[in-house]
């Protein structure tokens, strides 16, 4: 019998949502939450012997969290560890990836997790574990379990996996040879026809990510510079007049702070659905430091705090959307003569 330990977050362990995101690592015997579907999927070939869970904020904010989690896993002497799936939850994805990578490195046993393609955990950990492609929300749990179960068994048995495309996982970057059905030129013609028709096609070698922007020059004279504030932390005027979504935001907001000395819980709040909002709602300056910058403006340290701040919700928002908003914001900032930007994220 293959012994499995399952790692999940506080939410899937049934311990609560964001308000419990600071929960330290704990362990229970057997399975809970998504573990039930996994365990059923193994049809007796494998068994989840224990489930380790931890709050997402706790995991990401406490360096020692991974060691505690690893200790709890090691005690169970598993053959393989399943983490998540984390779908498009960024902090959960990072936690799953961190644990899965540590399992391979420290325990030298296989691990597997699942994420949506835009989860930052994918780029961070795809070379260090097997990350199965999932949908962007827990609605994709059934599909995720279905694709993760056979891969888990193969990994546990030490069998070779098929190609990332065939088995539905993100390429680990380790190149493996194979014989295709068609010769290369035929595959090139097929690919070109698809590309010309605007149909999806799969490149055989994804270019390494060199998607970097050259750093802009430093600001020379801070005392005369206009500084703008931008945040993905979802700070909005109370009541969220533009109805920015708490997750997968479809828009961004631009709000006037002329004459405002400091943000306040009475007039601002966060629309972000991915973190505990209490601290930000009590004092929104904790996410968007208007108060400090206004002081600095008065003291002549900076030239001016830009009249508008821009805001959106980073939670589960597609990279492509975020990119689109930022392009628009960038244009306006240039037009308004802004010299530098402080962008805060939660």
């Amino acid at each position, binding site marked *: 019998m293959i012994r499995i330990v399952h790692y999940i977050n506080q939410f899937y362990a049934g311990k609560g949502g964001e308000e419990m995101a600071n929960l330290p690592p704990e362990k229970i015997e057997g399975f809970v939450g998504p573990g039930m579907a996994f365990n059923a999927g193994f049809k007796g070939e494998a068994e989840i012997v224990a489930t380790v869970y931890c709050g997402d904020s706790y995991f990401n904010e406490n360096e020692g969290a991974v060691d505690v989690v690893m200790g709890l896993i090691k005690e169970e002497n598993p053959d393989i560890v399943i983490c998540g799936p984390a779908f498009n939850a960024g902090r959960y994805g990072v936690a799953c990836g961190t644990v899965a990578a540590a399992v391979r490195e420290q325990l030298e046993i296989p691990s597997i997790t699942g994420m949506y393609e835009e989860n930052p955990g994918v780029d961070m950990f795809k*070379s260090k574990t097997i990350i199965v492609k999932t949908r962007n929300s827990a609605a994709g749990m059934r599909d995720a379990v279905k694709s993760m179960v056979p891969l888990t068994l193969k990994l546990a048995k030490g069998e070779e996996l098929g*190609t*990332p*495309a065939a088995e539905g996982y993100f*390429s680990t*970057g*380790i*190149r*493996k*040879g*194979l*014989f*295709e*059905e*068609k*010769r*290369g*030129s*035929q*595959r*090139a*013609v097929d*690919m*070109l*026809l698809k*590309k*010309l028709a605007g149909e999806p*096609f799969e*490149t*055989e*070698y*994804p*270019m*390494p990510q*060199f*998607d970097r922007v050259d750093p802009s020059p430093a600001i020379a004279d801070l005392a005369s510079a206009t500084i703008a504030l931008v945040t993905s932390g979802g700070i909005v005027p109370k009541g969220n007049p533009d109805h920015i979504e708490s997750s997968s935001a479809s828009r961004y907001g631009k709000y006037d702070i002329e004459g405002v000395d400091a943000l306040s819980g009475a007039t601002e709040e966060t629309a972000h659905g991915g973190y505990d909002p209490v601290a930000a709602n009590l004092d929104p300056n904790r996410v968007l430091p208007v108060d400090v910058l206004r002081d600095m403006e008065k003291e002549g340290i900076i030239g001016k705090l830009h009249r508008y701040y821009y805001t959106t919700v980073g939670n589960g928002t597609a990279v492509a959307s975020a990119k689109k908003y930022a392009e628009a914001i960038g244009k306006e900032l240039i037009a308004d003569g802004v010299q530098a930007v402080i962008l805060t994220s939660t």
Partner: protein
Amino acid sequence: MKLELGIIKICDMQFGPESKIEGSTVFVNKEELQKIILEDEHLVSCEIDIAKPGESTRIIPVKDVIEPRVKVDGKGGVFPGWMSKVETVGTGRTNVLKGAAVVTTGKIVGFQEGIIDMSGEGAKYTPFSALNNLVLCLEPVEGTLQYAYEKSVRLAGLKAATYLGELAREIEAEEVRTYETPTLIEGIKLYPELPRVGYVLMLQSQGLLHDTYVYGVDIKHSLTTMIFPTETMDGAIISGNCVSACDKNTTYHHLNNPVIEDLFAQHGKTLNFVGVIITNENVYLADKERSSDWSAKLCAFLGLDGVIISQEGFGNPDTDLIMNCKKIEAKGIKTVIITDEYAGRDGASQSLADADVAADAVVTGGNANTVIQLPKMDKIIGHIESVNVIAGGWDGSLRPDGTIEAELQVITGATNEMGFNRFSAR
């Protein structure tokens, strides 16, 4: 431009008193051919052997592979600029000895010559293990400079291929394949709805035994230019090339360019195959910039919608490949590139020396660094000790028991970047 290929199937090759083709068997008068080859003052000896599919035979170090052809109708002759005058080829009819090849070997010229195994693990990776090969083992007169020796070997291969091709001059082929490229205007009128597709064929031209010739012209001295696809089938492009064995385009590859074949197969159906642009891979940055600028310019001039780009070699040619891709994409033309990879023996390194987001459609011929084990072969044609020095081998690649451990790089044609093979990587 229209060319018919008369396909003459060759299933066996034997020595005999008279050179001739009987049924599907080629008979070769060894002495007669030797005499022709040894007219070259730089060559002291020419051993001729036959290597057939399935035999326990290893050919090493392989320099070039050439398919025998003969022009039976139309202008010019095969291998223009070498075996024929420079008159434009690619029309009329050419007979092909399908299933036969001439393979040249001999004392090593460069470090980048390869292995053809006729059976076993290595045979899976090279298309030439499936052919009846007439192997010329050519040795230079002492004191011959390597350039002169390379040229002599190159010409010997062409001579032998032409000699075998002539045997098929009078044969009426049972199977005839027709390839036709309309003029630009005709093409537009014939297929107004189909996407206009071109092929950018990159030719190795690094000098120092890494050269490719077009109608006798060393392509490194040429600006990017155009050629009708059928011209390549008559030997307009030949290899004088000792780049890494796995991803050099032999003359056989140029004669049977798979991109050209597969684009012709779709011509008039799903696409309009407009033409072939040939460009070089020179060693100077200015040359790379200029040549890729010209590739992109010609693609735009032809009003192409899509382009397939094939590479030859690796390392700094990766930059030529990416430049071509990036500049052609910048013209609004969709590209697919064909390359191979040097991802390290563990497959974990970055595969190409250069990269760009524009290269979002890549076909790969596999990781050339993959380590392979080759069994001992009963018969060796050439010089087995070269395995320790050719690219992909190392000191000790050849074990005392005759087996070989080396990188896939050593196998001729294994990771071909025209997409000749089914081998790939993910």
